[in-house]
C-alpha cells in the first residue's frame, strides 16, 4: 500500500516538474519572439514607410523630389528642398546655440560644482526633459516670438513676424539641452581619474587639465552627445510647427520663416488622402526623416559603446 502511494506521489511530482519546465520553455519562446520583434521594430517602420512611399518614387526621380523647390501638390509637384533646407537651418541654429552652453555647463557640473549643486541640478535637467513639446511650443509663442518681433529684429534693422528660424532654433536648443548635458556628463565621468591626477601632478592648473587632457579624452563621446541632440532637434515636430512660421520657401536668414520637414508632415495629415500621390509624398518625407535620424543615432551610439568599452 505504502509503495503504491509513494509511486503515485512520485509520478504526480514528475508531471508537475515537467509542467514547470514546459511553462519555462513556452514562456522563453514567447519572450524570445517579443525580443526579436522589438529589435526589428525599427526595420519594420522603415519598410512600412517605404512601401507606402513607393508610388511616388516610381514616378519621380529621387533627385527631383529632393532638390526641386516647387511644392504644388495639386499640380503633382512635390519638391522637398524648401522643407529640407528649413529643417537644416533650424537644426543647425539650435545646435550652434546649444553646444557652448551645454559643454560649459557639463564641464562645470562634472569637474567644478560641489556635490550638492550637481545632485540638485540633475533632477531639474530631467524635469526640463520631461516637459511636453507642445508646452515648449506654447512658451515659444508666448515669450520667444514677441521677443524676436519687438526687440531682436528691430535691433538688426529688419522686420520679422517673430515666427522664424531663430524662434525655432532657440526653442529647439532648450529642448536638446537635457540630452546633450546628460550624455556629456556620463562621458566626462568615464574619463579615468588617473590621467587627471597625472596632469595635475605635472603642475597644470585645473582648467589646463580639463582643456588639454579631460576634453581630449572625452571628445568622441561629447561629439556623440551633440549628434544625439542634433537628431532630436531634426525630428522634433510640435514645437517647431508652432514657432517656425511654416512658409514653403528656402529661408535666406535666421529672421525669415522656415517650414521644416516634420512640420510639413504634421500639417498635412488632413488633406493628404484626397489628393493623388500626396499621402505617398508625405510618407516619403517621413522616411527621409527616419533615415537621417537613424544614421545620426547609429553613428552616435557606436561611438558611445566604444567609449563605454574603453573604461571597462
Amino acid at each position, binding site marked *: 500500500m505504502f509503495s503504491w502511494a509513494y509511486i503515485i506521489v512520485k509520478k504526480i511530482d514528475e508531471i508537475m516538474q515537467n509542467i*514547470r519546465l514546459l*511553462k*519555462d520553455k513556452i*514562456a522563453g519562446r514567447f*519572450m524570445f519572439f*517579443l*525580443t526579436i520583434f*522589438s529589435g*526589428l521594430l*525599427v526595420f519594420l*517602420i522603415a519598410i*512600412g*514607410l517605404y*512601401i*507606402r512611399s513607393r508610388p511616388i518614387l516610381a514616378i519621380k526621380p529621387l533627385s527631383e523630389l529632393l532638390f526641386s523647390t516647387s511644392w504644388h501638390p495639386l499640380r503633382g509637384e512635390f519638391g522637398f528642398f524648401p522643407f529640407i533646407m528649413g529643417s537644416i537651418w533650424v537644426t543647425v541654429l539650435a545646435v550652434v546655440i546649444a553646444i*557652448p*552652453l*551645454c559643454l*560649459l*555647463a557639463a*564641464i*562645470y557640473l562634472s569637474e*567644478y*560644482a560641489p556635490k550638492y549643486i550637481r545632485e540638485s*541640478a540633475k533632477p*531639474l*535637467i*530631467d524635469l*526640463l526633459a*520631461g516637459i*511636453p*513639446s507642445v*508646452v*515648449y*511650443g506654447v512658451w515659444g509663442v*508666448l*515669450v520667444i516670438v514677441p521677443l524676436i518681433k519687438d526687440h531682436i529684429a528691430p535691433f538688426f534693422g529688419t522686420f520679422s513676424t517673430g515666427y522664424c528660424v531663430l524662434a525655432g532654433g532657440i526653442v529647439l536648443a*532648450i529642448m536638446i539641452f537635457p540630452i546633450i*548635458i546628460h550624455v556629456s556628463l556620463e562621458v566626462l565621468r568615464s574619463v579615468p581619474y588617473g590621467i587627471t591626477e597625472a596632469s595635475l601632478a605635472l603642475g597644470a*592648473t*585645473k*582648467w*589646463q587639465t580639463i582643456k588639454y587632457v579631460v576634453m581630449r579624452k572625452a571628445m568622441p563621446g561629447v561629439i556623440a552627445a551633440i549628434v544625439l541632440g542634433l537628431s532630436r532637434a531634426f*525630428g*522634433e*515636430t*510640435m514645437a517647431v510647427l*508652432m514657432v517656425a512660421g511654416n512658409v514653403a520657401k528656402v529661408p535666406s536668414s535666421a529672421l525669415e520663416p522656415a517650414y521644416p520637414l*516634420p512640420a510639413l*508632415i504634421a500639417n498635412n*495629415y488632413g488633406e493628404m488622402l484626397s489628393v493623388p500621390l500626396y499621402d505617398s509624398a*508625405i*510618407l516619403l518625407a*517621413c522616411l527621409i526623416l*527616419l533615415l537621417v*535620424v537613424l544614421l*545620426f*543615432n547609429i553613428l552616435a*551610439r557606436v561611438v558611445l*559603446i566604444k567609449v563605454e568599452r574603453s573604461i571597462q
Partner: protein
Amino acid sequence: MDKRKIEENIFKALMIASTCLILSCLVLILAAIVVKGLPSLDLAMITQTPKGGYYLGKEGGILNAILGSLYLAGGATILAIFISLPVALYLNVYVKKGSRLASFTRFALDVLWGVPSIVYGAFGFTIMLYFGLRASLLGGIIAVSLLILPIMIRAMDEVIKMIPEKLLEASYSLGATRLETAMKVVVRQALPGILTAILIAFGRGVGDAASVIFTAGFSDSIPYSLLRPAATLPLAIFFQLGTPFPEVQDRAYASALILTIMILAISITIRILTRRFTRHIVK
C-alpha cells in the same frame, strides 16, 4: 595674478553663467505658463466638455481632451507593459551575459528611442490603413505604445541589470526554473524600478502630440469606444492656440498649465516611488 589663473577664472565664470542660464530656462518656462495660464483656469475647464462654439470663445471645457489623453496613455502603457516586461526579463534572465542577441536588441532599442514621434505617428497610420481602421482611440494607443516601448524596455532593463547575480543563483539552486526566478524573484526585487519605468513611459505618452495627430483624430465628446476618435490634451492646446480668438488662446495657456501640472505630478510621483517602494528589496 598668473595668466593661467585669469583664463581659468574667466572660463569658470562662463561655466557658472551657462549652468544658471540652462536651469533658468526651466524656471522661465514654468513661470510663463503659470502666469499666463492661471487667470483663465477655472473649474469648468476641467469638468465640462466643449459646448457648441467652444472654439469661437463660447463656454465649455476640455474634459474630453484630459480624459482622452489619460485613456490613450493608459491603454498604450498597458499594451507596452505586456511587451516590455517579457523583453526586459528575457534580456537579463534567459539570455547569457554578453550575448549577441542582447547587445543587438539593446542597440536597436537605443536607436529606436531616438526616432521622432511623428514617424511613429506615420507608421501607426500606415498600419491603420492596412487594417482599414479610421482615426480612433485604438489607432492612437497602437502608435503611442510603439513610441513608449523603447523607453519602457530600456528603463526596466537598467533596473533589472542591477540585481545581483547571486540572487538569481540562490533561486536556481533551490530548484526554481528561469521563469519562476524571473516572476517571483526578479520582478519583486525590481518592482520600484519597474513602476518608475511604467510611469516614465506614461508621462511621455500623456505629453506626446505628434504621434497621435494622424492616428487618434480629434473629437469633442469623451471617447466611449476604442474605435471612436479621441481628443488629446496636447492637440487641444495646439488647436486652441491656432484660433484667432484671444479668449480661446487664453484657454490654450490654461490647458498648457493643466498638462504641465499633470506631467509634474507624474515626475514627483516617480521620485517618491523610487524612495519608498523598497520593501521587497534584498539588500
